[in-house]
């Protein structure tokens, strides 16, 4: 497995300029646009938070754009992905519209979950994004389960060969959650085709990785202990992410085996909106920002003549317009009706849930049995 191995943390080494992958220029341009879109989206999201349009907890992805874009582009649309609470970038990279993503944070009906999930819980079933999970590490057994299900469907139900791989993103803080070790053990044991991508931005909230994690200089040892294939990837280099993740994903798909990725990257902003970042220096931040993944990829595309400075300007204009439109859409999208409070609690094949565990209120006095069969007839046969 060829992987880049930056010395030290992400971006401190300058990898030799890569050849562009032999893909249609339009694809490469789309990747650049996707990264710009995520960054612009997160900048405007921060403003909206400060304007009190967005509530609760909100974690922006600025700096890590190459990870979400590179990883999602390295797999197929039918490959499930699941992530933690810093999820706007993954949602946009997977194809969620800026409108649906922003409106969700505004708590409006136009949001991907009709305003019921919020910033940390982005779900997009048509695009195979299974959240958006707020509890650190909770998504890791779930991610193993998504992959278990695709394998089960392909092999047990359809009697064929495994054909999908699941990407399960987590932060370096989640590496210390027990659930993650259980998930890796199960994945290794049951040959589950899931890739645990540790977006190692060096900090779990305000705790530097070496203050919270043993063997942080060799994070892959955590996966190695469970027999997982491993890779260390420079997450500040889109081409490295795409190339290495594509190779790894195909190996996992073909062999139906799990993998562990130490994806070295950097979070330019704080953990959340209320983080003054006193635990690190401005010099450190500037060092990473000067190795920005978007700027590097943009330069590579210009150098190879795929885009021009002019066309990039046009692209940015379009990106700004798209994000501006998402904010206008979110402002105009209606608040959820109060009746939405009671929907989506149960699939409930026997009647509508009305905020009570008491079936008497579901269908009025006649429905004393508290159930309604699907043909509309009530009562026991």
């Amino acid at each position, binding site marked *: 497995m060829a992987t880049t191995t930056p010395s030290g943390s992400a971006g401190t080494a300058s990898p030799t300029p890569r050849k562009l992958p032999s893909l249609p220029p339009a694809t490469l341009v789309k990747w650049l646009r996707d990264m710009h879109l995520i960054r612009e989206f997160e900048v405007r999201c921060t403003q909206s938070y400060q304007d009190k349009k967005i509530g609760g907890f909100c974690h922006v992805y600025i700096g890590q754009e190459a990870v979400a874009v590179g990883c999602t582009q390295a797999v197929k649309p039918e490959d499930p992905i699941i992530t933690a609470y810093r999820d706007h970038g993954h949602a946009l990279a997977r194809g969620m519209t800026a409108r649906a993503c922003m409106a969700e944070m505004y708590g409006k009906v136009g949001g991907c979950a009709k305003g019921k*999930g919020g910033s940390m819980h982005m779900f997009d079933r048509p695009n195979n994004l299974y959240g958006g999970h707020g509890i650190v590490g*909770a998504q890791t057994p779930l991610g193993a389960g998504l992959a278990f299900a695709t394998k089960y469907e392909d092999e047990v139900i359809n009697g064929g060969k495994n054909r999908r791989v699941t990407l399960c993103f987590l932060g370096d803080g989640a590496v210390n959650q027990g659930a993650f070790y259980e998930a890796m053990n199960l994945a290794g044991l049951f040959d589950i085709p899931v890739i645990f991508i540790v977006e190692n931005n060096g900090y779990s909230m305000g705790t530097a990785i070496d203050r919270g994690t043993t063997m942080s200089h060799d994070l892959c040892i955590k996966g190695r202990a469970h027999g997982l294939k491993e890779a260390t990837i420079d997450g500040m280099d889109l081409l490295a992410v795409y190339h290495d993740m594509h190779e790894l994903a195909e190996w996992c798909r073909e062999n139906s085996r799990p993998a562990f990725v130490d994806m070295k990257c950097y979070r330019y902003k704080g953990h959340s909106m209320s983080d003054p970042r006193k635990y690190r220096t401005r010099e450190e931040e500037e060092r990473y920002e000067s190795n920005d993944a978007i700027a590097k990829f943009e330069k590579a595309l210009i150098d190879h003549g795929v885009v021009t400075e002019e066309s990039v300007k046009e692209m940015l204009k379009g990106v700004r317009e798209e994000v501006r439109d998402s904010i206008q859409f979110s402002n105009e999208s209606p608040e959820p009706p109060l009746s939405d409070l009671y929907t989506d609690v149960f699939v409930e094949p026997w009647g509508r849930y009305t905020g009570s565990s008491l079936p008497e209120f579901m269908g009025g006095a006649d429905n004393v049995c508290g159930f309604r069969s699907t043909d509309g007839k009530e009562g*026991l046969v």
Partner: protein
Amino acid sequence: MSAVLSNPVFREPSTLGGPVREIEFRDAIREAMSEEMRRDKRVFLLGEEVAQYDGAYKVSKGMLAEFGARRIIDTPISESGFAGMAIGAAAMGLRPIVEFMSWSFSLVAADPILNNAPKMLYMSGGQLGCPIVFRGNDGAGGQLGSTHSWCVEGLYSNVPGVKIVIPSCPADAKGLMKTAIRDDDPVFFLESERMLGNKGHVPEGEYLIPFGHAAVRRAGAHCTLASWGRPVNFCLEAAEILAKEGIDCEVIDLRTIRPLDLPTVVKSVKKTNCAVVVDQSWSFSSPGGELAALIHKHCFDDLDNFVHRVHSDDVPTPYSAKLEQEYLPNVRKICEAVRSATYRA
């Protein structure tokens, strides 16, 4: 998610004909799981010792031989991991049955079973559901001590988005388990180690028992005894003793506590003007406390006395057989509560 629950055949097992067939509680659960696994390949069973060991309590005995290791899956001792994994699989449309050897062990899986399974549908705005069954032994076994004797319904019934089933007899166990497996929502199915060997008539043939539909186990005129799970059997014993004293009890088996069939209880209390709730979980913030409050609300003018409650005592479960028997909602305590409620004390 596609509703597998197409035209379910809901029947009361007591209305089904056929020869008397007495089987154990554990056999009834196994029959339900096996029948559903035969009809739907998306259903599979996983948990500790469910396959090669034939189940720690032999509930899954023989299932590995029929369905193979791809569908009857031994897991490591890793509740948080395998419960979470099964929830992920359910989100993708499979229909897992997760066996907790004891519901007491589910406490280490609290995050996935309480934060993911019941909330996924809501948080995703209806995009992703979680058609999953968690099942295992609940409540005091026999001298298992404090850590292994949890009545988790006291904790978990507080959470919206889950359905909680607590059967009291083999026939119900089968019919309710089949409904649980076909249900599109997460179902917590609470068995009792002390009842797994209980025998009862389980009719041949297909039947499902709907959730939220209580059974009147014994008709009576003087006092309504409302309960679920193992204590229903204690209520029936107590009713026999009380009958000899001239107190005629009506025993209602709720079968599921979420949803809760309040109308059947209310109808009974309006007749008897007296209610005793028997619940094995601890009294504070319990489903029994909830039911008592609801009876007070809906039968306020019908009650001749406040609703009495019988629970496990408010202490950690003791090991000593004598103390454990005293701790549980036993027949003596139920009789005392009914005498007090009917002013016969």
